[in-house]
């Protein structure tokens, strides 16, 4: 994954742009000189990285599933079982356990969960960027969005 900025944009500050995916929040107190950041580039790289990670996990899981169950290439009955209710892990500990046990469908699920998390991380990264730009209004708006998102996940956990 290339982190080079297109030539038309100001070069990103290397201290913040080297690992945008790993350290999404840029603290203004630590890097006061990073303005202007290239928020577009940071967000773009986060999205791309997250999507590629998710895709790799899902693809691995799918390959594993078919490798383990050669009958899936020939048996119509198996399909009915696979798409019937409650065939899949849908609690975080179950997914984790399945991944540890190298179960294909749990890998797929882990990849899907990564995909679901990417937009949340994107909002968190935006919050860091608006704070770095000292844009109070948008930092507040973004905090609101993030709070609502976390509330949604909490509610999901409760049900």
């Amino acid at each position, binding site marked *: 994954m290339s982190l080079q900025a*297109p030539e038309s944009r100001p070069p990103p500050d290397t201290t913040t742009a080297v690992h945008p995916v790993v350290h999404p929040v840029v603290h203004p107190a630590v890097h006061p000189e990073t303005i202007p950041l290239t928020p*577009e580039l940071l*967000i*773009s*790289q986060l*999205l791309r990285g*997250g*999507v590629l990670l*998710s*895709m790799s996990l*899902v*693809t691995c899981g*799918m390959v594993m*599933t*078919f490798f383990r*169950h050669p009958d*899936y*290439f*020939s*048996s*119509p009955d198996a*399909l*009915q079982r*696979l*798409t019937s*209710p409650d*065939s*899949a*892990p*849908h609690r975080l500990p179950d997914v984790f356990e399945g991944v540890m046990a190298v179960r294909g*469908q*749990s890998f*797929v*699920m882990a*990849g*899907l*969960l990564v*995909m*679901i*998390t*990417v*937009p*949340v991380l*994107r*909002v968190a990264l*935006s919050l860091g960027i608006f704070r770095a730009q000292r844009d109070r*209004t*948008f930092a507040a*708006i*973004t905090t*609101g*969005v993030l709070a*609502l*998102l976390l509330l*949604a*996940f909490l*509610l*999901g*956990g409760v*049900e």
Partner: protein
Amino acid sequence: MAAALDATPFNFVAIVMLVSMGAGLLGSLLGLGGGLILIPVLTLVLKVDIRYAVGASIVSVIATSSGAAAAYVRDGLANLRVAMFLELATVAGALTGAMLAGMVSGRALYLLFGAVMAYSALAMLRKLRDDDAPREEPPPDALADRLALHGSYYDASTEREVTYRVHRPLAGLGLMYVAGTVSGLLGIGSGALKVPAMDLAMGLPIKVSTATSNFMIGVTAAASAGIYFARGDIDPFIAGPVCVGVTLGAFAGSRYLTKLKSGSLRMLFVAVLLWVSFEMLSKGVHG
């Protein structure tokens, strides 16, 4: 359940992945998420239970959004500030919708889905002539100025830098709450409502509307995805191939948006909406 379809799991995965690629391609251009195409194909053709179709569709929306937005954000097509401002309303709406989802019947969902699509299509069609003409200056808007929502982008089809001014951000916010609720209910990104809201109410160019909608739908969908996951509506065997196919399609589609003529984009948008609207309404009427 896939009872009526005599396919092997491998065939099923292959079909779902192919259809998903198409959905991702179209969705990334139109700002729609792939749900519009996926839900009908999964339920009507592959006989998947609507619950799992909606769960897979939520994943497809996020995949389309993140896959395509990576390019749209980098190219300056998606307006980050407009997106974040409106996401306040869409996420609140998505929460509302996901809470209500268990209480609404499948048939009512189809009817609602169809009506939403038909309305959007007609509203968008009325603006067809404006697209590639020079833009009229909208009346100044104090809130949009204060939030610095205005922007510009480079249009590769006309080889011009297009500058635009945003107006009526509050009207946009209200429509986005409705859009969010619909997406929580139906498991679609409801770009079908987001795009017209930005296009008609807020005066954004059509390409900026679809690109920004694309960027936003992932966040809206993520808000409901947690709830769907906990409910067990996301089946990896269905959602997995959807995820991969849609992402590949979205990567491909996001390369073409800026080269497409705005008028053609609008026609494509309207045509897709009308088709899906018809499909869904008939499903709702006949049960």
